[in-house]
């Protein structure tokens, strides 16, 4: 999992029911738009994230698009983050190395 993806998952999982606009996600995840939107597009293609258009609140105001994790997206995000945390807990020093040939 890439660092931007991790950040986006964390932001979504802070409140899975919340609807997030692209700009809000940018601010919360600390990612630039050129990184965030392709990432969201990939997640949408995998059906982990869904989007919808809001109804404009004022006349003439442009409708904005918001994003939220799908049910599958929530599961995948939790799983991926849990696996990442587990890997981090193990740390790089405890990585399992293949045994040398003469030890067998």
């Amino acid at each position, binding site marked *: 999992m890439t660092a931007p993806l991790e950040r986006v998952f964390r932001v979504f999982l802070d409140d899975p029911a919340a609807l997030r*606009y692209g*700009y809000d996600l*940018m601010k919360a995840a600390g990612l*630039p738009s*050129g990184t965030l*939107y392709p990432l969201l*597009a990939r997640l949408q293609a995998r059906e982990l994230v869904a989007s919808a258009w809001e109804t404009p609140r004022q006349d003439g105001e*442009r409708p904005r698009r918001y994003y939220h994790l799908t049910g599958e997206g929530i599961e995948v995000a939790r799983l991926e983050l849990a696996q990442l945390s587990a890997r981090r807990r193990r740390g790089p020093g405890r990585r399992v190395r293949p045994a040398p040939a003469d030890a067998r």
Partner: protein
Amino acid sequence: MRGERTALRVGETLISLACRRLPARIRQERYQEWLAELPVILRDRDTGPAPVRVVRMLAFAADTLRGTALAPDAYRGAHRGAGARNTAAKSIRWLGTGLLLLGGLLACALFLLAYEGCIVYQLATGPNLAFSVPLVLVNLGFFAASCTPRWASPWLRWYSMGKVVVGAGLSIRAIASLSGWGHPLLFAIISYCGYAISVACLGMAVVQAGRYPSRPQHADQGPGNSLAGP
């Protein structure tokens, strides 16, 4: 407000360029999505003062363009892989473009500084017709441009007028000192006043830049509402 509309127009152009790289079926909806974010960023007071918000809005648009240039496959529903092979080369090209733009901006700033420095030097040491006459002519051109509806701007008008006064004062002072006519101090005072006017106009421009998108734009004004696509 005028400045806000201009900034939004620049942002719109960048978004429009970004959308040209997308597949036709999603182009319009992405254009609408990103365009809707521009006025939101411009009015997001949490970000900081107005100039910071403008920079942030333009950075949003420019980075969106970078995103569509570097990762067009993401919008076609493909995963990272084959399409990302050229990403490094593209990134270098983008970095080069960015550095070039930064260099251009720096060069403009240095030029402006050198220009003002030359005027101050002329004011302090004594006039030179080879400098003051072009100064008058160039700024008369700017002044004429600022009177046209396309470039109408009160601060540009006053700034160029101030520089015309400086140049005229310096020219007359040079001619007077050559011919021994009039009192050079009078023309020196005129050119100092002209310079003071132009500096005040620059100051006003900075203050205006600091204030401008602070007032919310009316919904039915400006390009933020145009329905034209990319």
